[in-house]
């Protein structure tokens, strides 16, 4: 109390200076805390590697090599970062409303299935039209998938976290059924797969880079949704709902509508990731699109503190770690789950670092 009173007295004189120091501090903090958590996870993972008898320094050198060491590994990293950005948005956007949505994997899968279906329905049309509609179909399917969870949350009170996680399993079961049944291409023998969308309808690489357009789409969608959530009335309404849902209701915000729309946007982003995986990489739907982009996306969203703009660099970082998995297997004989362990440690420590926010300010106030 005495502190507060003193501040009030001196506020007119030091107001501007203080507030700019505060905002600088908060920026420093949002960068510092996750960095410390990341560094701590690297140390912890290093101890784990040393315990199982692997040289942690050699492993970290390999991770760097595999992720950012050469142009080739950069391409690998960036190709993975695109879908990760989009699946991260699936968690980051509803987080603004105070919802924890973890259905990115499921939305990606239904998006992929819808993309393949759209390509088949439009066979023979000019490829520009087919590609556009494939992307829209993927986004639409994802939007419906997560939008349904948002609707259930608001109008039926169903917990969105458990519902979206269950929807992941249902989406995968649905795809598994379709690729052995209605969508099956019998000419593919090594694993049940759907028909191919057609070579003409595949989207190519960004000129000058060997990275497909998924990266540009991911960055673009992140920027667009950042502007929407940060600089529009709609985004402000979403933020009020997340802060105090009763106040939002009192001030006349259509809470249900905003909730469903935000969830639809989130699902559309993940659905687009599925569409890109089909149109740029796989060509057909099969179990090989279920590689955990959705789950790593959750981690990306939490490390980025649910900020769509911060999602971009974090997705590149974690895309790099994923890209180095193959190298770790080949050079160090580590199992493919190594990356999962590292990701898990990062996730746990990022959440454990949450109480550190606000410490910087308190330290200064005390001193």
């Amino acid at each position: 109390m005495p502190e507060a009173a003193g501040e009030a007295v001196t506020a007119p004189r030091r107001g501007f200076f203080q507030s700019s120091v505060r905002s600088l501090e908060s920026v420093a903090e949002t960068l510092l805390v996750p960095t410390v958590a990341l560094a701590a996870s690297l140390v912890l993972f290093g101890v784990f590697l040393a315990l199982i008898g692997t040289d942690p320094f050699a492993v970290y050198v390999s991770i760097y090599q595999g992720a950012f060491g050469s142009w080739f590994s950069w391409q690998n990293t960036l190709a993975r970062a695109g879908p990760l950005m989009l699946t991260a948005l699936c968690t980051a956007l509803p987080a603004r409303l105070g919802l924890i949505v973890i259905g990115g994997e499921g939305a990606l899968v239904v998006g992929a299935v819808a993309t393949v279906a759209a390509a088949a329905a439009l066979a023979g049309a000019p490829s520009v039209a087919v590609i556009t509609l494939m992307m829209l179909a993927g986004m639409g399917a994802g939007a419906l998938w997560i939008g349904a969870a948002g609707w259930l949350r608001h109008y039926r009170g169903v917990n969105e976290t458990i519902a979206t996680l269950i929807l992941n399993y249902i989406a995968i079961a649905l795809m598994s059924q379709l690729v052995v049944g209605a969508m099956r291409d019998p000419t593919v023998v090594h694993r049940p797969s759907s028909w191919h969308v057609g070579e003409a309808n595949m989207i190519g690489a960004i000129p000058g880079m060997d990275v497909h357009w998924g990266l540009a789409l991911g960055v673009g969608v992140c920027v667009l949704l950042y502007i929407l959530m940060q600089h529009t009335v709609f985004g402000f309404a979403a933020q009020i709902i997340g802060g105090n849902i009763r106040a939002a209701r009192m001030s006349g915000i259509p809470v249900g509508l905003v909730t469903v729309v935000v969830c639809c946007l989130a699902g559309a982003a993940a659905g687009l990731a599925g569409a890109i995986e089909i149109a740029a990489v796989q060509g057909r739907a099969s179990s090989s699109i279920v590689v955990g982009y959705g789950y790593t996306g959750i981690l990306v969203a939490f490390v980025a503190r649910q900020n769509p703009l911060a999602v971009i660099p974090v997705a590149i970082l974690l895309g790099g770690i994923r890209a180095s998995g193959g190298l770790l297997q080949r050079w160090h004989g580590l199992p493919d789950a190594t990356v999962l362990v590292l990701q898990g440690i990062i996730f746990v420590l990022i959440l454990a670092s949450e109480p550190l926010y606000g410490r910087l300010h308190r330290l200064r106030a005390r001193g």
Partner: protein
Amino acid sequence: MTPVEEVSALGWWGVPVAVLAGALRVSTPFLFVSLGECLTEKSGRINLGLEGNLVMGAMSGYGIAYLTGSPWLGVLVAGLAGMVLGAIHATICGRPRVNDIAVGIALMLFGVGLAFFLGKPFIQPKAPLLPSIELGWWSHIPQVRAALEVNTLFLIGLFLVPLMMWFLTRTRWGLIVRAVGENADAARAIGYPVNSVRFGSTVVGGFLAGVGGSFLSLYYPGSWNEGLSSGQGLMAVALVIFARWEPLRCLYAALLFGAAGSLGPALQSVGITQGYYLFNAAPYLLTLIIMIISSSPRRALAGAPGELSVMK
């Protein structure tokens, strides 16, 4: 040993027999995880990471059984592994402003990843499995006898149900757990150590989930591989909501989920292979439908602990 082989001779009667066999077998992990989660949630905290405990329990139980030759030691170690994960969850969630649901997701991914990492050497070897008890001695039909072969862990789970009911409603400690879960501020004002009570509840819950995992690898299906669990730990969390935080209803719900889970293989055994994956999705659909029916947008569910974050 799989229900598919057992019932093939019975024709159409095979379906209900296989579903019964499935209800008795498949339900055990559900039962253990949901009882553990029930205790944790009664203390006002949700641990969404029990899927990680389950998979870690399955891996460590199998590994220890293979290395020592004793499946029961495996069960114990599986429980201890679950306990460690529960302790991590409880420690992090005991700090201010930490979201217990998010920590649960993180620990689920961590537990599953760690189990896959450490479990790589145990995918090939054959570990000694848990013995079973024949309850079908009265029948002359081998299929029925096989269906009624139950595992000791299932019986232990059955015994845990009244034990947990007695603990929660008839003991002083149970009352403290419920008080902490109902209103943490009031409990703190009386002088109960809220964080320690929740720590204990989460650790015991984690232990039970780990034991549930050992059932998967040491009895049915009875091997360790990365596809062993298909979200049972997660469904069990949803199941506790359906059971309205009552141990006895957890048992019924676990049996129901076990039956739903064995519908796909049972139908396949009588030649219905169409829609196999869709029938396999039956437990997930059931979970979702049950959640939609039992939730309400306006009021907290009857019996829900007041402090529970999923219910707010």
